[in-house]
């Protein structure tokens, strides 16, 4: 009976002692056990119940006190199996907590479950994890994607089992599934949240990101997990963390907001086009200046190929530690270290991963580096320059999250790597937020026959408050805060 509530709502109930953390956690775990989207790696039942039982006296000023949450299974959790949805880590139990996990523990939020992902977070379909496809709770026919790679977290949060869910976002791995799952998906500036303990996919693009059911909840979570991590993450920012939650007022009257002609022109489905126009009207009606800008189509089309090259190159190196020597899969008898490594990596990785490692290695070879890796870096620089150029004139960029509402689950898991023009412009432009490391928030923009689709707002570096405010202004008028139309497991 407490499912489908926001952090704000649950906090009220907790401090007024209408419900205890233990009751919340029990209810959520029951719901997890009944859920049918294949979103779960490990339920941390024992740990969660124990921790929740210890939470007795409510902390009035701590909005996360006693709030249950789930996290993608690529965050290091001490003593709790962490697989990254890969066979190579099917028995890996970390010895330390990721910084965000530690911070949430300190805030008395209760981790109840580790969720599925595309293997090692490399993928955008929610289909390549070692447990198979994770389904979209909005689609009982199991035909359409929930998206990935943070598929499990998206599904659990969409089902209202927990009010927030941690994920990671390297290309759009939270913000895209947020669209398909009717959620708020947010990643802040690169360096705002410590990545220590997040299994790396491509560090120069990786962000800790998360799902919530409202914009204000998103601000609450950021406030508690952001911050400098001097001992563990040299890329984390020493900039002071702001009071994001209390700074949200929805005032956009002096904001200048740009939308990109070439992206809007590539939208396929009419409701998305209408949705974007509606967003523009809402912002204008609230006093914002909203204008069209142009973005070189070739540059837009370069986002995905450059992303593939850079992310695969970094990934092949980051995952070289998974060799079966120190931890993880050790298969069969081996007569040499090479055999141990080859066995582990042959049996431990899925096809898409191997394919991406080959792409990454190939683009880093001395003979190819200039033509592939360096060229992709140069493209990245040009794209970032263009984004920053727009953001020197405007406070934010408004885009649709994608051009198609329903994306079918395809059997060929490598299909997402295909480079058709539609794929490249309207379906993968969110990657520019990773290239530039900027705050980027996806929010539900509409429902088409009870299937959600979203809009995205991107702002200047460290202008998280700006992103929250514009998103909040839209959320207020779109009326899609905390959507509860998904068929709940307990109904």
């Amino acid at each position, binding site marked *: 009976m407490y499912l489908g509530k926001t952090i704000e709502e649950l906090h009220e109930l907790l401090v007024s002692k209408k419900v205890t953390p233990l009751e919340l956690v029990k209810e959520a775990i029951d719901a997890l056990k009944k859920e049918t989207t294949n979103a779960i790696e490990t339920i941390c039942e024992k740990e969660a119940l124990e921790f929740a039982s210890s939470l007795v006296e409510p902390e009035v000023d701590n909005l996360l006190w006693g709030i249950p949450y789930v996290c993608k299974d690529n965050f290091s959790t001490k003593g709790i199996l962490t697989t990254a949805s890969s066979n190579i880590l099917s028995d890996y139990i970390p010895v330390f907590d990721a910084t965000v996990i530690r911070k949430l523990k300190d805030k008395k939020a209760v981790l109840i479950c580790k969720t599925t992902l595309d293997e090692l977070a490399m993928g955008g379909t929610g289909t390549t994890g070692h447990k198979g496809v994770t389904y979209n709770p909005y689609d009982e026919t199991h035909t359409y994607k929930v998206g990935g790679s943070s598929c499990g977290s998206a599904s659990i949060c969409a089902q209202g089992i927990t009010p927030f869910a941690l994920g990671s976002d390297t290309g759009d791995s939270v913000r895209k599934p947020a669209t398909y799952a009717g959620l708020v998906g947010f990643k802040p500036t690169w360096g705002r949240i410590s990545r220590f303990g997040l*299994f790396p996919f491509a560090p*120069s693009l990786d962000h800790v990101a998360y799902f919530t059911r409202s914009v204000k909840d998103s601000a609450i979570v950021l406030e508690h997990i952001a911050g400098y991590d001097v001992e563990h993450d040299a890329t984390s920012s020493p900039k002071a963390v702001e009071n994001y939650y209390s700074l949200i007022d929805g005032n956009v009257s002096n904001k200048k907001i740009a939308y990109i002609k070439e992206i809007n022109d590539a939208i396929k489905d009419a409701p998305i086009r209408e949705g974007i126009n509606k967003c523009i009207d809402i912002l204008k009606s609230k006093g914002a200046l909203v204008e069209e800008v142009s973005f070189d189509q070739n540059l837009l089309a370069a986002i995905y190929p450059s992303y593939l090259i850079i992310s695969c190159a970094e990934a092949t190196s980051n995952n070289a530690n998974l060799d079966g*020597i120190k931890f993880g899969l050790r298969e069969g008898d081996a007569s040499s270290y090479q055999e141990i490594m080859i066995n582990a990596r042959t049996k431990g990785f899925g096809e898409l991963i191997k394919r991406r490692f080959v792409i990454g290695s190939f683009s880093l070879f001395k003979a190819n580096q200039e033509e592939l890796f360096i060229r992709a870096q140069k493209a990245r620089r040009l794209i970032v320059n263009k984004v920053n150029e727009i953001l020197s004139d405007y406070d934010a960029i408004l885009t649709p999250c994608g051009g198609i509402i329903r994306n079918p689950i395809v059997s060929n898991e490598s299909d997402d790597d295909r480079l058709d023009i539609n794929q490249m412009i309207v379906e993968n432009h969110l990657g520019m937020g990773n290239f530039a490391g900027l705050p980027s928030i996806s929010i539900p923009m509409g429902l088409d026959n009870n299937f959600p689709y979203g809009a995205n707002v991107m702002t200047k570096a460290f202008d998280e408050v700006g992103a929250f405010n514009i998103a909040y202004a839209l959320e207020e008028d779109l009326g899609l805060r905390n959507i509860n139309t998904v068929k709940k497991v307990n109904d």
Partner: protein
Amino acid sequence: MNFEAVIGIEIHVEMKTRSKMFSSSPIAFGKEANTLVTPLDMAFPGTMPIVNKQAVINAIRVSNALNMTIDNELWFDRKNYFYSDLPKGFQITQDKRPIGRDGYLEVKLSNGTIKKIEIERLHMEEDTCKQLHMADYTLIDYNRAGTPLIEIVSRPNIRSGEEAMKYVETIKSIVVFSDVSDGKMEEGSLRCDVNISLRPYGSDTYGTKVEVKNLNSTANVQRAIDFEIKRQTKSLLSGIPIEQETRRFDELKRETVLMRKKTDSVDYKYFTEPNIVPIKLSDEFIETAIKTCPELADAKIARFKEIGLSEEEASQMIQNRLMAAYFDRCIKVNPKRAKAFWNWLNGDILAYLNKHEIEITSLVVTPENLNSLIDMLEKGTLSFNQARTVFEKMAIDNKDASSIADELGLKQNSNEDEIRKIVEETINEFPQSVVDYKAGKDRAVGFLVGQIMKKTKGKVNPAITSKLVVEILKSK
């Protein structure tokens, strides 16, 4: 045909920082295997590197000593390859932008000429695990994984074994005196790989190079190169081409032996380490690192010469950094006594240390007490032999020289009035000696001094005594 040797040297120096290059794990030698390890050292997923500031300071100091251009931004790269001693599957190193570039070193050869050896680069990186290969399994010790290293790469303008030996010796001295490393080749804290090729004099192309590893002393660097030059010359003269290969130096046979043929070089797929954003090094930071660098050998020699040591004595004194440090403390106590301290350090103290197999840091005699001992010796309060005895006792008790001399009843009497009394007494006891002396028998003096020593148990100053004996005999 005469050949010219073309030699380049790569030196790896293990730094003795308190913690590892990128993790907070402490560094120590000889600890139980796998006890100095953090999750990062074993490459657990999600761990991230944090640059060790002291390692950067060390690298700046050595770069400066090698006359290098120091980069004002720190960049790190990944060198990717799979090996069981490489936990992450890549090594964090500095490929594109080493912290030090384009330096040189001048070494003095035995024929008196100065050779300028050019240095291409100096960069920081991390060490790998230590492996113990058993008959049918391998043990891995992660204690060493992540130990900070400095790699120094010379240009191939070294031409002989002697030049190479001097070059390595000088770099060793720099890293030891700057307190960057123990610089112990025999323990592997300074490792040196040599590349040698030959070409006909006058040629400006390079021959096929051979790499020699396992050089555990500067002397062996020279021996290995000398051997290799002979081997390659012989081979070339017999028309057998040199193959690209890695050889190691066999200390017993004093020759290089084949380890492996080099196949295609590995493609390390270098790229910038994304988890370390480039770090700006301010001029102030670099200058402070340089200014606060412990004094290097050359500067010490110059300073020691100023206070009265010869070139040889000064050079001798810096052979051991700890001895030099002790000497420095001594001359701080008494700057005018450099020579006497030098004599003690290289004489009795060295003998004492060798006898007891200890380093000077374990010597309990303080420079202050050594100084007071020399005081007593110079004033004649102690004879040289007495001083030695006192020193031996000081080395156990660490009391000041005077109280030990008292305890041992060893003080020498140099009071002329008192000695004069004893002399007169003794001459009176042996009147024949006056007669002998007058008759030109000089041994009468020796006889009397001997009697006096016997009587006083050697506690009178012999020089004063014999002076007075002669004086009084003459006056009789």
